[in-house]
């Protein structure tokens, strides 16, 4: 049975298994895990350098984001041009800076603090989520049919 890495988008807990935990054992968040790649899992857990490890391609990243949004109260933004640009940035940032940092925010150069910028982030706490129904970068938007 194939196992994957999964990351909790709230606390960055890493899980290695066939499927993601429904509830994060570290922070208690529900349905918060997104499929992760070797580099991200390794860098977050501290056993891999920023220039090591396999990363998702842009098309794999797109699948992962779709999979993450599946059966949630949000969807990927229907503006595909925006989504593709963001995916390009996320993939590029992981290659060059070690993690999938949000292309619409800058890191502080402090590892722990910058973990909050790893995409998908804990966007439900953002003001734009509350006010506009979208994460800061506009990658995920609230479903209108709920």
């Amino acid at each position, binding site marked *: 049975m194939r196992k994957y890495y999964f990351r909790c988008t709230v606390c960055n807990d890493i899980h290695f298994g066939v499927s993601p935990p429904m509830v994060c054992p570290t922070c208690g968040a529900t349905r918060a895990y997104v499929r992760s790649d070797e580099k991200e899992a390794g860098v977050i857990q501290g056993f891999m350098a920023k220039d090591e490890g396999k990363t998702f391609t842009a098309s794999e990243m797109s699948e992962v984001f779709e999979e993450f949004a599946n059966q949630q109260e949000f969807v990927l933004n229907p503006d595909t041009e925006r989504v593709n640009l963001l995916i390009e940035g996320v993939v590029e940032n992981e290659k060059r800076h070690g993690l999938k940092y949000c292309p619409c925010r*800058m890191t*502080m150069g402090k590892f722990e603090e910058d973990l909050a910028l790893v995409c998908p982030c804990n966007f439900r706490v953002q003001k734009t989520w509350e006010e506009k129904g979208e994460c800061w970068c506009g990658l995920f938007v609230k479903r209108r049919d709920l």
Partner: protein
Amino acid sequence: MMADKSRLIMFWGRECPHCRIMMPLVERLEREEGVKFQRLEVWHNEENAKKMRALANVIKSACGGFLGTPTFYDSQGDEAICGEQQYEVLREWALAALKMG
């Protein structure tokens, strides 16, 4: 209005959709009002990233706790506005900033 190249700064990211939307508005503002923004791309230029981080107190406060792009910063007034803005809002902000100086 006198153009002061070093006065107003736009911190932006190459793969940031908000920045892509704001860029033509900044160009329009420059064309119509004669103001100038120094454009500093932060994700592909570490020196620019350092400049943005050095202004973290002001920028985080304007963005809601992080260094968001785009951020428009007035180096003389030490003030910033963050994120996608309506043209009129950016125009008012820039003109008010330059007037204060």
